[in-house]
């Protein structure tokens, strides 16, 4: 069970919490995303003229999104990702992290 909660000296509650959090958050978000995606897929790809029209309209709406409008948000996300990458990279220099 070292991979789940192991620090340098055996069981560590914080390491356990961290690992469990990662597993649960990943599984939860993955399942929610897959379920929502599957429901949308089932709804939109129903062989019906109105659904076909809706599918095309949604696709066109999606293509018309102006990324420039969300430029600030996207830049912030890129910055946050960079910070997170840096913090994770810093773990390499701490023994037992």
């Amino acid at each position: 069970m070292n991979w789940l909660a192991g620090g340098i000296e055996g069981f560590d509650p914080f390491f356990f919490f961290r690992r469990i959090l990662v597993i649960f958050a990943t599984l939860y978000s993955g399942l929610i995303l897959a379920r929502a995606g599957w429901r949308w897929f089932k709804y939109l790809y129903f062989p019906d003229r109105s659904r076909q029209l809706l599918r095309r309209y949604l696709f066109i709406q999606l293509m018309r999104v102006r990324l420039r409008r969300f430029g600030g948000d996207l830049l912030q996300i890129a910055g946050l990702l960079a910070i997170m990458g840096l913090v994770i990279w810093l773990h390499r220099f701490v023994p037992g992290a």
Partner: protein
Amino acid sequence: MNQERIDRAALNLDQMPAEELRVLAGHLMVHMPATADRDSVAAAVTRQLVILDGIEREALLDVVVWARRPVSRSAGKLELVREISQLRFVSYKGLSLRALAALAELRGLRVPDAVTDRMLRHLLYRSDGWSGWFARKRRALVGGMIGKLLDEDERDEEYQFLPERPVEPSLRRHIEQQGVMSGIATRLRSAADDYLNTKLDEIETRIDRKLDQIDQRLAEWRDQEIANRLRIIKITLTASIIIALISLVYTLIRTNL
């Protein structure tokens, strides 16, 4: 060769309000800075009208048909150039030599005497610049993708001109041809048809306006949804960074104890 001249008196440039003049300049493919005063816009429009006088109507029609813009066969130069002004960063492939030359002249490019369609295409591509090149490639890629996804039949249908407006004979001619009662009845029927058509056009315009409003509101809702999703991503990332920092500090403390 049909070098129809544009009626300057009908346009009445001197009396035209500045805002309308700017719209006309846009339709004539005259690009003026927002700070340009009315006189300089009017001068640029006049220069463009002179250039337009020198271009064959058929050359403009070639461009419009190639771009598949909806016009009637008898459309005037102003209407044609207004449709052409809507074209931006296109590929120019398949355009006739005279159409390419017309497009180049409208964009204010100097067209040499002995010129080939390839040279003209190159000239137009160069005038589009890098942003034009990028936009063209992006549109070709996106168009290809969407075409494959949504368009079952990728072939273009044959271009069809808009129907011409029929010329209505006078009441006298109606009576001469059909007699008094029949002539008047035909005339009345035609007036009623006109009225109905006008009303139908009005209804159609109203429906279009409503659909545009719905489309606008849906676009706003879509943008709002995207903004919300992005906010959630930012919150998640911030939480992840906080946990990663706690983990780093904790490990440092634990190692040094």
